[in-house]
Each structure stands twice: as C-alpha cells, then as structure tokens.
C-alpha cells in the first residue's frame, strides 16, 4: 500500500498533448502509472503514447473510470482546469503549474475543501510512490533519491527534496509516498491534511517533512502531533533558519511577514510537540536511524 496513488490508480492527464504533458506521460507510464485517458480541447481522436485524447474531462469521464487527474496546464488556465476536474467528480488532482495567481489558488482550495477533494500543488513536482506510480515529474531514475521504502515524505520544495531525500536513502531507508504540496502561499492541500493518510498507511513507519520559512503549515503539523491524531515518528528539515525577515527567499510562500512564518517559531512548535528537527539535510538520515531503532 501507499497513499494517494499506486499502480492501480486510474489517472487522467489534462494537457496531455503539450510538450511537457506528452513527455512526462511517457515517464509516468514507464514508472508504472496507470494512465487511461487524456484531455486537450480540440484534440479529441488523437492518441499520446497509446492513450486516447478527449476534448473535455466530461467526455473522458463518459468513457473511462477516473480516480485522479494530473494537470499539465499553464498557470493562468489552472483554475478552470481544476474546476473542470472537480465538476466531473474527480477527488484527486495534481497541478504542477508554477505561477498560479494567488486569488485563483484561494478559489481552487475553497472548491476542493467544499467537495472533499485533495488538490496537490501548484508549484510542485507532484506525488510519487517510488516503484509504483507517480503524478508529476520526479527523477525516479536516480536511485539514490527515489528508492522504495517505508518513509513518507512531504515537501514544499523541489531541488531541496532531492537533496534531503538522498540523505534518507543514504541512511538506508526508502520512500513510501512523497507528496510535494508546493512552494506557493496558498497550496491546494496542506501538510497536516495529509498526515491522517500516512497515519493509516501500514507501509509508512515515519514521516519526514521538508519545510521552510513562511506560512503556518509546520505549526499545523505540530498541532496534529500534539493533539494525538498523528502518532508516528516525524522528522523535519526546515530551510531558512538564518533568513532575514521581510525577504522573499525564492518561493512566493517563503517569507516572514506580519509576525508569522519564522523558522525559529516552527522549530519551537515542532520540538514541543515531540517531533525531531534536523539542522542540516544530512542529519535527517541519522535522526531517522536513531528514532526507528527505538521503535
């Protein structure tokens, strides 16, 4: 088992005929993802890597059972594409678009919350259960990063995920499911909302979160641990401990403003709840070894 996706999840690709869409469709298939249909307005009747293309999500859903939709859609059209998938009853949607307007992101998340759907992204690499399936673009062929295993990973970042996860693997572990919630200020799903799935997953022994300055997602994780709803060991690595206040550190969501978002506050909250916080990426591996030996 894994969470969010495995090899049985029936995946639709919105924007399948585009350059990125068709390129990553092939990679997702090669990794074992069960892609069953694609959508590009105006391109019905074509195929991409043997996958039939439809004009709309509704038309694709009329011919196929769909569990999840993967969007390769530019940021300015993402809101419309997410609404289209939600209207067709799809409950798992991943959008990798970098640059979604923040007012659109708010409306996307609101719609997802009210329909009890999980929209992952934007500004993310997506979701991967190594060895099983992925929705997004991960260098799954780099074995020192994407080795299957029993550690759940959640992240706000891309390259930093490769860096930290390589340390998890170097320490002798592997990944059950990795979810990139993305680097935007209003991500579709938040860390704490995915914790119950890791809690219930018999193939996840511990969770690593890769966070950074800005927002309150790490504090929400601390609250979930403190309330007793998440009880598995959790290790956090947070970027931006030494970042100056008021500067946006690369990601739109990575800024300390209005008195919230400092890494110091996040560390205090997580440690108080009983999570372990690694000062450097390499220490994530040694903390996991220390914790999991005890269990």
């Amino acid at each position, binding site marked *: 088992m894994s969470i969010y996706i495995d090899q049985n999840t029936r995946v639709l690709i919105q924007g399948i005929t585009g350059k990125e869409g068709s390129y990553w469709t092939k990679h997702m298939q090669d990794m074992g993802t069960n892609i069953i249909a694609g959508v590009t307005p105006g391109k019905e009747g074509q195929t991409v890597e043997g996958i039939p293309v439809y004009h709309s999500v509704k038309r694709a859903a009329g011919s196929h059972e769909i569990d999840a939709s993967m969007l390769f859609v530019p940021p300015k059209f993402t809101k419309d594409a997410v609404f289209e998938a939600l209207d067709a009853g799809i409950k798992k949607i991943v959008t990798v678009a970098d640059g979604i307007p*923040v007012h659109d992101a708010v409306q996307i998340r*609101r719609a997802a919350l009210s329909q009890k759907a999980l929209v992952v992204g934007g500004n993310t690499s997506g979701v991967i259960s190594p060895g099983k399936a992925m929705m997004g673009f991960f260098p799954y062929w780099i074995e020192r990063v994407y080795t299957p295993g029993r550690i759940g990973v959640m992240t706000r970042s*891309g390259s*930093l995920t*490769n860096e930290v996860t390589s340390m998890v693997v170097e320490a002798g572990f592997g990944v059950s499911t990795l979810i990139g919630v993305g680097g935007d200020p*209003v991500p579709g799903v938040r860390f704490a909302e995915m914790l119950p799935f890791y809690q219930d997953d018999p193939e996840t022994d511990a969770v690593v979160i890769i966070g950074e300055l800005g927002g309150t997602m790490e504090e929400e994780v601390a609250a979930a641990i403190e309330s007793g709803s998440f009880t598995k060991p959790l290790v956090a690595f947070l970027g931006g401990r030494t970042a100056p206040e008021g500067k946006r550190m690369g990601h739109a969501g990575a800024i300390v403003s209005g*008195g919230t978002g400092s890494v110091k506050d996040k560390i205090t909250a997580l440690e108080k709840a009983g999570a372990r916080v690694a000062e450097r990426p390499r220490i994530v591996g040694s903390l996991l070894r220390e914790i999991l030996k005890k269990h």
Partner: protein
Amino acid sequence: MKLFEYQAKEVFREKGIPVPQSRLAQTVDEAVSAGKEVGLPCVLKSQLLQGGRGKAGLIKIARTEEEIADISAELFGRPEGVRILLVEEAVNIDKELYLSITIDPVKARGMIIACAEGGVEIETLAKEKPEAIVRERFDLTRGLEPFRARSVAYDMGLSGDTAKQLVKILMSLHQVFSRYDAELAEINPLFITGDGAVVAGDAKLSIDDNSAFRQKEYRITRELFSSDAEYEAAVDGIPYLQFDGDIGLMCAGAGLTTTVYDLINYEGGSIANYLEFGGPNYRRAVRAMELCLKNPSKVILVVTFGTIARADVMAEGIVEAIEKLQPDRPIVTCIRGTNEDRAVKILEGAGLKPIFDTEEAVREAVAIAKRGEA
C-alpha cells in the same frame, strides 16, 4: 509587487475611498509649491516601501513654507534614497482605526482585519490587544457582501454615520483587493476627522506577482529596488537578493538555495547575494553569472539538484559563462540531478573540480572566501 503610498492612494481614490488632498514633489521647489496648493500645515511623506516611516523620521509636518523647504531638503538627502515626497494636507485627526483585506490560506477565503485602534502596526496590536481585532472572512467567488461589511463596522463598535462611511470604504477596499489581485490592501491609519469624516491616512497595496499577466498597469521600476543587480534580475524574472558578504550564491531551486544560505551561515561564511536560476531559468547560467559578477564577492558557489533543470545543461551553461565572462574569482560547483554523470565530465573538461556533496561545497567556498580575506 508593493506599490508606493502615492500609487496606492491613486487607486483607492479611483475606487471611491476618501484620501487627503496631495501633490507629488521630486525637488525642494516642487515641495514648496505643492505645500502652497494643498495648504498649510502639510505633511511631507517620503515615498519608500519600508514600514515604520513615521518612527524613522521619514514623515514630517511642516507649518510654514520655510519649514517645507528645510524638511524636504533634509528628506531628499536621507541615506534611504528618497526620490519622491507626497505632500499632503494635514488632517484634523480625532481617532485612528485600522482596516485591511488579505488572504487566509488555511480557510481559503479573503479576510478582513479591522480594529477601532489604528496607527500602530497590526502585529503589535495583535500581541497587545488581540480582543480588539475584528476578523471577518468572505468567499472570493461571492465577493464581499454588504451585510458582512456592516457586521465588521458594528463589531468594531462603530455606529451611526461613522459606521456607514466605514461600510462604504470597506466595500471600495474590496473592489481594490479584487480588481488588483491584491495580497494585501491596507489602510493604517484610517482617520476619523474632527468633522466626523472617515479618510485614509496611509495606503498599502501589494499586488500578487503571479497575477502580473493580468495586472499590466504597474511595471517594476528601479525605485522599487535597492541595487541595480536586484532590479535587473527582477526584470529578467530571476530571484535575486542583495547582501554584503563574500560568497555569491548561484543555485537552482528556491528551497535548496535557502538551505545553502543557512549552511554558509553555519560555517561562519557570509553571503554576497542570493540568486536562484532553477525552474524556467535553468538555461540562463550566463545571465545568472553576469548578475553575480556585478557583486564584489570573493567566490561564486553553484549548487543544484534538478530534475527538469538538467545537470548537464546547467554544467554546459556554467562552462559557457566562464568562457564568455572570464570571472575574476573562483567558482565552486556542486551540480547533481538528471544526467549528472555527463555534467561531471563537462565540468572536468573545463578544468573545474566538481564536488558532489552540498556541505563539502559550502565548506570549500567558505574556505576560499576566508583565504581571500587573509
């Protein structure tokens, strides 16, 4: 993108929010004639984006023409680089309120924050008098409903004509928030004058950068940045921050760059600039290095671990940049990710010594910077 007060006030005025009479001045002479037009006494407000301008002495009252000349000369000479003064009529203030609209990312709604005690920063208010702050959330798809705006006014403890004026201002502020894809639209302080009029004393408007494609009126200008390199990088869409240390960062991936920034600090090094050329910019190593070289750093540190931002493409870019720009300082590279084996060959072929471990690369860069000091 943050607008200057005078720009935000233009927008507010357009949408029907009362603002004091004002003129802009770029010289002492202009300030004096602006003061005559708006009437004395007047307020001279330095147009800078930093908060706390009042405390920093960047906002001052002038009672005579001579005072306008003296004070404006002083403000134009300030080290912060004041280029524009907003010369504003002095309002007879009876009371100060706080009003803003922002986003609640957890509940995924717009959020009004209001308080019958304004003038101080809202973070300070939140700490000292949390019970005095009114928060009201609204659905972005529905927009702000009049009943909700009324509810805010009454929860603030306002009544009668003042409540009516606040509702009107709040509805207008929501129009600004929505029309300009704002991250924040704020009036602090919002004055109640001696005559009972409600007037915006200050104006903050921060437009979401991701909405730039549909918010074309405001383009970034040099005045918004503290250095040429920051401005040029912003025009090119390359995230860049200016610092005054020794090590120029030229990394890919925001989270990784931020982590390298931390690691340098842990090792006792200092950062000259933060530059992130991942994502859409990974083929622009030459431009990225050009920006880094504008800074007097002692070493440039390249750290990447990309997927789409392929290691081989970035390595080629670095080699090309070195050939073209002939940097006068050492380059430390730690390039990993897709096609990393080829990247190593490319770097070695150009006489560089690729490092494979981030911490080792950081230590190397810090050591070089320290040798440069000796």
